[in-house]
């Protein structure tokens, strides 16, 4: 079949000999489209029981994507072989690249343009939004708080992660310890927010009232007075940072631990025979060997704390001096309805991660994966 169409020469001759094929090739995509559209309409308008809608949604979503790939690949394979070879890569790579452009690459440009426009996204205002972002009192407070998050949050995550990784390496129960420290990684920030809000909760003084929050109960037991912890700046920021440390230390620990496991045991043995103490071992061998990993973990957590949103949103809503950049972004866009200012804040977030982006690109070029 493939050979005969080469002989007939050119697209025109091929069309004539394959009229039936062309017709089918037109009908199949139309049917596919109709089926998928019907599914969409059903999901949007149906009043069916929730369970059925959920099942249909999953089948429609996953099946639809698989169907689209199969049909478009089938279409391309109906073409003459040189066209198949030319177009098939785009069937494979195209959808992914298209979605990346729609959801990440183009928005960078579009948000940049919006950041020079007014609240509704229209009307050029020059650098006004940036002027707001860098001079407004609220914004300066968010920068200050994010700095706290980035410095203290990262420091405690990485150093605790390192401590636990090194200690657990010497224990028979390593797996259990690590699983416990790692477990909060599976918990949502909202869930973690509830967990810690309960610890910080405050009922105040009064007849017959006993504190049900763990922190205040401990303070009372030690002879202090209970406090409304989350409404007292600047300490409330640190209480929120504790939550991030609780959530993210597991991440640091796992990555650092696997790096420690990668240190050749002969190296450690040789140093021990030479009479090095465990502390010398730690500072002179372990730390220098896993430097690269420590740097990666630190950058990852710094970026994480830069974009942090959920914890602050759930715990304090950014009130009482706990506001952070990502929460101010949300407030500007969705509470005050100012798309221009929100865009400027998003661009500032992007600029803050550009150094990491450049580093990643450089690493990628050196790896010569291509």
């Amino acid at each position, binding site marked *: 079949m493939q050979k005969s169409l080469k002989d007939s020469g050119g697209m025109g001759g091929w069309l004539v000999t394959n009229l039936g094929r062309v017709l089918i090739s037109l009908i199949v995509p139309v049917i596919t489209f109709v089926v998928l559209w019907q599914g969409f309409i059903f999901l949007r308008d149906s009043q069916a029981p929730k369970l059925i809608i959920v099942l249909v949604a999953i089948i429609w979503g996953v099946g639809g994507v698989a169907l689209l790939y199969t049909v478009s690949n089938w279409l391309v394979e109906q073409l003459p072989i040189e066209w198949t070879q030319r177009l098939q890569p785009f069937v494979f790579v195209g959808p992914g690249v298209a979605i990346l452009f729609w959801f990440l690459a183009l928005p960078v440009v579009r948000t940049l343009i919006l950041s020079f426009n007014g609240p509704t996204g229209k009307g050029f205002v020059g650098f006004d939004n940036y002027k707001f972002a860098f001079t407004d009192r609220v914004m300066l407070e968010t920068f200050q708080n994010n700095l706290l998050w980035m410095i203290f949050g990262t420091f405690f995550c990485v150093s605790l992660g390192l401590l636990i990784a090194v200690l657990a390496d010497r224990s028979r129960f390593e797996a259990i*310890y690590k699983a416990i420290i790692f477990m909060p990684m599976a918990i949502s920030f909202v*869930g973690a927010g509830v967990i810690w809000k309960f610890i910080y909760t405050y009922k105040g003084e009064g007849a017959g009232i006993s504190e049900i929050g763990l922190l205040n109960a401990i303070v009372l037991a030690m002879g202090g007075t209970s406090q409304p912890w989350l409404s007292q700046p600047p300490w409330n920021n640190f209480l929120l940072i504790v939550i991030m440390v609780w959530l993210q230390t597991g991440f640091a620990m796992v990555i650092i631990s696997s790096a420690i496991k990668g240190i050749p045991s002969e190296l450690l043995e040789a140093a021990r025979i030479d009479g090095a103490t465990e502390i010398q071992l730690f500072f002179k061998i372990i730390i220098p060997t896993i430097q690269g990993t420590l740097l990666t973990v630190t950058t990852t957590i710094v970026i994480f704390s830069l974009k942090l949103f959920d914890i602050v949103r759930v715990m304090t809503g950014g009130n009482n001096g706990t506001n952070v950049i990502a929460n101010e972004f949300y407030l500007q866009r969705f509470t005050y309805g100012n798309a221009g200012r929100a865009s400027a804040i998003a661009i500032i977030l992007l600029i803050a991660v550009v150094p990491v982006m450049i580093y990643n690109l450089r690493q990628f070029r050196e790896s010569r994966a291509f």
Partner: protein
Amino acid sequence: MLSSFLVNLTLIIICLIWIIPTFGIFITSFRNSEDIFRTGWWTIFPHKGYVKVDEIKIDPSVDVNGPITVDGVTHTFEEWRAGVVMPDGRQLTWFGNKRTRLIEVNDLQWVGFDTRLTLENYKNVLTGLEIRFKDGNGNEIVRKGNDLSGAVLNSIAVAVPATIIPILIACFAAYGFAWMNFPGRKLLFTIVVALLVVPLQIALVPILQDYTKLNLNGTFLAIWLAHTGFGLPLAIYLLFNYISQLPRDILESAFIDGASHFTIFTSLILPLSVPALASFAIFQFLWVWNDYLVALVFLGDQNRVVTSALAAIVGEKGQDWHLLTSGAFISMLLPLAVFFALQRYFVRGLLAGSVKG
């Protein structure tokens, strides 16, 4: 020997600190709302506490506005109300307001395990039933429960496709980048690497504009696409690293046998990549299930997922700990199960993906 003991002791202390917060809400979620309101969750364990042993009626002839003498001890009403420890160790507390004329006698005794645990909170938060309880002043309060079971279903409808779709798309793309030749291949992949750390906030404003124009806001499709877009750079990057390292001869012999790219992809590459797919799948599933921001922006109040439903309870009923704790625990069940069952794959995915910000 001593150093091993110290290592384990330190780790046990740290682990206890790590586990107590979760443990606290776990216990609390099984206590009834009145108990939660009155005493800390740790009181379910055996402890020495005041137990009511008797009541004393105050004679109507006593002037409650002046000093009141009970059993030879004299205090003002306010002091009685706050509780007075008698010389013999009993604690006397005025119950209610001045008109009740009732004093409770409490004695310090050992209290055993509290066995008054209940599943009521879970029932309430999962369905939409009304719940009644008494507050500190004895007033009855009626609150409506939250329909968290609907939110769990929505979360499943969001998380399952939002995990599988990006994997499918990324797998095709990774195969294309690894084993096919086309113009712009290197440039496009460089863009993928660059997009790894782009914060998703950058996309929210313009994408919301698009969704409004397309009338997609609040639909499952909208949030699947958004999660796919935000998860794709890491997915393509991870799967490319894996797929491009599969042995070349397997593919070549398949080509010689006349197999097309599509057949090779579906019958060879997909099965061979299962470990990498699993790593990313767990990663993405946990991320989507636990996500709050994307769901808040694109789903709004229709089709609320578990995280937004829970956050809504925090906002509306911040002191209703019986709902909050059971709700939080429900939201954690599935991710914790996935996490403990597939921890090994998850760790592998983390190690491979630590370039992402």
